[in-house]
């Protein structure tokens, strides 16, 4: 049984013939997790973390094969890295009630690693900016296109660190809650439109799982922004 198959089959035993597969899958994941290196996870809590994370995973399984689920060893490992990090963060947060530990510093010790080659991500960035954004704009009526292009330009400024959301709001009027909400809604509609276009593009071009996921990640990064 491969790691991906174990991910799909791991689940609690229920007294049927499926139990053998579920148990075997749990053994495979357990052995993998025992050899896991997660930055910031101390040896003192390591076993508790592995046991808790695996029991949580096992008790919600078997997951079966779902669209978007990890389809490679690397992505299965990435899934469990996140789960282990979440466990550690929660443990530290609970401990903060009694100590002065800076949990957020601890939580930042290891940024989530994208399970893709940097070249795949670069290509996805290019696809977003050269194909999807102009393609989406071209599909809109002229008035909607103007709003879309302006909002995209503002988002690009924000993501390049060239400006803040408040500065953009001030271009549209006084920095009131009403103006902030109006600008936010223009941006969120634009990003939704772009997101729909990205999904259509993925379907139309029949991108494989890796390239589709990379494009979604790049789109997700483009959406990130502070609206305070």
């Amino acid at each position, binding site marked *: 049984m491969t790691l991906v198959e174990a991910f799909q089959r791991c689940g*609690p*035993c*229920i*007294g*049927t013939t499926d*139990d*053998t597969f*579920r*148990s075997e899958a*749990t*053994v495979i994941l*357990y052995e993998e997790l025992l050899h896991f290196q997660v930055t910031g996870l101390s040896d003192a809590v390591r076993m*508790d973390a592995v*046991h*808790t994370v*695996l*029991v*949580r*995973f*096992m*008790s*919600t*399984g*078997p997951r*079966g094969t*779902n*669209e*978007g689920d990890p389809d490679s060893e690397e992505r299965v490992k990435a*899934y469990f890295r*996140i*789960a282990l990090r*979440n*466990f550690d*963060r*929660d443990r530290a*947060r609970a401990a903060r009630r009694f100590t002065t530990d800076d949990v957020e510093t601890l939580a930042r010790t290891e940024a989530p690693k994208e399970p893709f080659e940097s070249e795949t991500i670069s290509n996805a960035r290019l696809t977003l900016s050269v194909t999807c954004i102009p393609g989406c704009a071209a599909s809109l009526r002229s008035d909607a296109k103007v709003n879309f292009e302006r909002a995209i330009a503002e988002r690009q400024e924000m993501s390049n660190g060239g400006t803040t959301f408040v500065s953009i709001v001030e271009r549209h009027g006084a920095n009131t*809650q009403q103006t*902030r*909400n109006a600008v*936010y*809604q223009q*941006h*969120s509609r634009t*990003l*939704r439109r772009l*997101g*729909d276009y990205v*999904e259509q593009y993925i379907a139309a071009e029949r991108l494989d799982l890796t390239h589709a996921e990379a494009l*979604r990640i790049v*789109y*997700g990064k483009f*959406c*990130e*922004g*502070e*609206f*305070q």
Partner: protein
Amino acid sequence: MGISVDSLGPSEAYPWPDLPAGEATGVVARVTLAAVLSGKTPMNPATIPALEQIGVRVESADRAPWNVRLSASRPDDLLAVRVMSSTEGAWLAQSGKQDHAAVDLRKAGVVLISASRGEVMVAADADGVTFWTISGVTVEPAASVEAPALRWLSECGSADEWLRSEVSQLLQRGGAWANFVAAAIVARYSAPANTEIATQWLEATLACREVTVLAAPRRWARQLQPVQVRTVQELACAEATRLALVLDDVSETAVPEEGPWQSAWLDVCHGRDDLEGVCALLREASAAGMLQKPLSRLDTTGQMVRRVLPSGFVPVDERTRRARNLSPDSWWSTAE
């Protein structure tokens, strides 16, 4: 009548009795529809398989299905009779009572009978009366689903008050969906109380042994009747559609300040998390396949909406926090 010939299923035909001879031998009764409807006239149970299949009971005053009283097989089931001819006295229904009707099938000509499990078209001509099952869209009545979810929690000595409260609320709400979700939540959220018990659960699974509280809801799901499974599948698809609509509302109304969009967002997150548990149980019944596409569409939209929500205003509650522990890669779970 707007019914395509293609949608007509197999037919059953019954010839009219020879009138004068029939009356003389009592094969044909001289009755009024009012008497038929009242139930005071002696009636004979009639076996018309097409109507039985859709949940309609037939009693006939005659040996042939002629002057008939139609009623729903079960008290609360639906029965609608639509008579196409405008002939007076062709049918009669009691005002305010929709589960009974008296029909003179010979006078009525063409009749459409709708019930909870489908529709039958009836057409009379000079020779007799024919019943056709209409294939196509039929709505199966929802099966009832009862889940002993609180018992499972008690049997395993669960001290998780949050879980018990969630399950109690669902069971109190009642109905097939809430009851199934209650079972799904027990399956999904039963967690070891501490790391020692987590180790015991893990060791049991590694040794191919059961953990009672995890096994009970799954075994229960496996023994559901096919009609119960179909009911849950249909309700799950309907829930996925509802959540997609709420997501659109959230996307349209979310602004960087507190507001009603936040409770709508939590509603979506809880609903999607319910579906995750429901899918796990349906998988035990080998019945989760039909949910893959609706959930995939919902998740694509959910991820997209989640990305554009104003950070710092996305609400968190116990459910979304716990969901993050179980599904760290999900869009509907949140960190504090």
